[in-house]
């Protein structure tokens, strides 16, 4: 029996490795975006790709997000698999028309004749001290657009596996990279990274019996930390990492809530019209008779993402999660 070397690696390194492996495996995979070539991306996720595969396959584009995604549409029409980088979450907004009017609809519009296998990489979320337009969580917009898959990893291994799966998908995938986890390290085996997970499966990150925290992306480590802290209060929390917002894994989520009878949805983006409302409704529809308390949401406040010196008050942290967990001791009003 051989022992595999499991080394710590960062999420950014795993993403780079996923891009490199995808490009090596399939000559139709093209990486494009602003600064992705010589600089290797502002987060260095595309580091070394232009050197290894040439500028025709890892291309520094003009600074224009609609143009980046719009030309990727044409490239996909001609049989390529473009992987485009939107440098920061809020920089993707100029590309929304291409995303919503074309990328998400082309398969449907042409009755399956013209699928668009495009991966849109969006570094998203706060907690890195970014100024305005560098910390948005825009997943609700993407979730509300039929035709898109919406995926977000929380671990190093998932970053690799899900990005490979996204690039291999024959449908467009919005790949949300939690930028504050770029430098988080995990045990990961870079010599044997093939674990390509199918898109659409949630995973139980921590088993527990008394309530379920349903979360994804940057909030997963926060929820795990909260679950550890909650042990002191006598709570044994289960943490479900969704990994994929579209398609949504109702089965894993509902199975967990039926076991625990209580649920809190945790995410950074605003609560009103946010992913948590959808998730809470789905859980309620499926688990009503198992629920001991209403499904609660712990989300960012309903405001434009705050300036960096105030963001810690906005982001759902351990205390706010524990407070919600405490409120799960529901007693019906008499």
């Amino acid at each position, binding site marked *: 029996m051989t022992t595999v070397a499991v080394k710590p690696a960062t999420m950014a390194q795993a993403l780079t490795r996923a891009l490199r492996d995808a490009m090596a495996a399939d000559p139709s995979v093209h990486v494009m975006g602003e600064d992705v070539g010589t600089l290797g991306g502002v987060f260095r996720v595309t580091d070394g790709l232009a050197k290894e595969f040439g500028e025709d396959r890892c291309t520094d584009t003009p600074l224009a997000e609609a143009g980046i995604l*719009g*030309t990727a549409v044409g490239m996909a029409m*001609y049989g390529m698999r473009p992987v485009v980088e939107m440098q920061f979450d809020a920089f993707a907004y100029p590309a929304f*028309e291409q995303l919503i009017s074309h990328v998400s609809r082309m398969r449907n519009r042409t009755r399956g004749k013209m699928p668009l296998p495009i991966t849109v990489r969006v570094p998203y979320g706060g907690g890195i001290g970014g100024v305005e337009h560098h910390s948005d969580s825009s997943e609700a917009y993407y979730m509300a657009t039929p035709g898109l898959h919406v995926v977000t990893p929380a671990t190093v291994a998932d970053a690799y596996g899900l990005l490979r799966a996204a690039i291999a998908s024959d449908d467009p995938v919005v790949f949300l990279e939690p930028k504050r986890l770029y430098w988080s390290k995990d045990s990961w085996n870079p010599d044997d990274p093939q674990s390509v997970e199918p898109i659409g499966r949630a995973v139980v990150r921590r088993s527990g019996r008394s309530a379920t925290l349903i979360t994804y992306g940057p909030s997963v480590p926060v929820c795990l930390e909260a679950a550890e802290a909650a042990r002191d209060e006598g709570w044994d929390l289960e943490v479900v990492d969704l990994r994929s917002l579209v398609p949504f894994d109702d089965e894993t989520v509902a199975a967990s809530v039926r076991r625990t009878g209580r649920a809190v949805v945790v995410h950074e983006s605003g609560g009103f019209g946010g992913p948590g409302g959808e998730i809470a409704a789905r859980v309620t529809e499926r688990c009503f008779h198992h629920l001991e308390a209403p499904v609660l949401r712990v989300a960012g406040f309903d405001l434009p993402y705050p300036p960096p010196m105030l963001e810690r008050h906005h982001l759902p942290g351990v205390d706010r999660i524990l407070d919600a967990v405490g409120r799960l001791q529901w007693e019906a009003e008499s």
Partner: protein
Amino acid sequence: MTVMEQRGAYRPSPPPAWQPRMAPAPLLPDAEPYRVLGTEAAVKADPGLLRRLYAELVRGRRYNAQATALTKQGRLAVYPSSTGQEACEVAAALALQERDWLFPSYRDTLAAVARGVDPVEALTLLRGDWHTGYDPYEHRVAPLCTPLATQLPHAVGLAHAARLKGDDVVALAMVGDGGTSEGDFHEALNFAAVWQAPVVFLVQNNGFAISVPLAKQTAAPSLAHKAVGYGMPGRLVDGNDAAAVHEVVADAVRHARAGGGPTLIEAITYRIDAHTNADDATRYRGDSEVETWRGHDPIALLEHELTERGLLDEDTKRTARDAAEAMAADLRERMNQDPALDPMDLFTHVYAEPTPQLREQQAQLRAELDAEHGHQEGAHR
């Protein structure tokens, strides 16, 4: 070290000399739109091509008339007519090789038909039975694009991809004068020029974006002038002169195919009909203007030239008319049949594999349809 000390050490030099990256002169369009019909240049034009253009123009005019009639019968939800602009549609499409691609706007049904798309399938979007009726790969025609100018970056990406693969494919992207104000127009032209992508941008300047005249759309001397800023040549052509449009587009296609990069062409034309059947053009333009343009009709111009030079006899004209009538009759007949629609198609092409959520909704609709069917069967009994 203080700032003052730094200043003392700093020896100012003159700013680096500025040089333009290229001379703009060869990129500038001519002062007058290029014309062939009625000029010396017409002598060089290929009679076979001119006769083919004539037949296609006659067919295109008839198509516009038939489609407009179909809107009145409720067979089409809407039709944006290209009557008066047929020369741009047809001559541009015929300047492409089979391996090339066309990226039409919503008004460019005729260009798609001229590329070989089935006249009925070209109307699917406007009839409302699906969004695109034809297979884009069959004749290399992208879906008719409803948002303005968003198909232009697609053309650039496709042409760029083809070149990376070593295929000498050219993309022709059509847009209206209003579309040139959109951000995607700018981004597409800029990407095309930077990448030297084999793309030809054809602006059909028909005078109005629904009701807004060109003077309120742009302050540029001409739309072709916009090319200079991107570093590509701009050409101005009489859009009602089919021979001129064909020559200018064919030139640009050859230039792109040879690796010369993109060209922006502005064809000056006029929309004789309203924006669509839902628009009232009398609110924003006068009859005299329309009449002036009727005097510069693309079919009459070509017919005059061909007749003058003895290239068009009554037989040829009749043949063209008969072919157009036959097309119109076929279009009428097939459009008057109710399309067979399968509601389950709603779920088939959202993703390669339906999500679990879509599967649930699919089952719901199936049950609804079965119940409906059961009711109908019950009623018949």
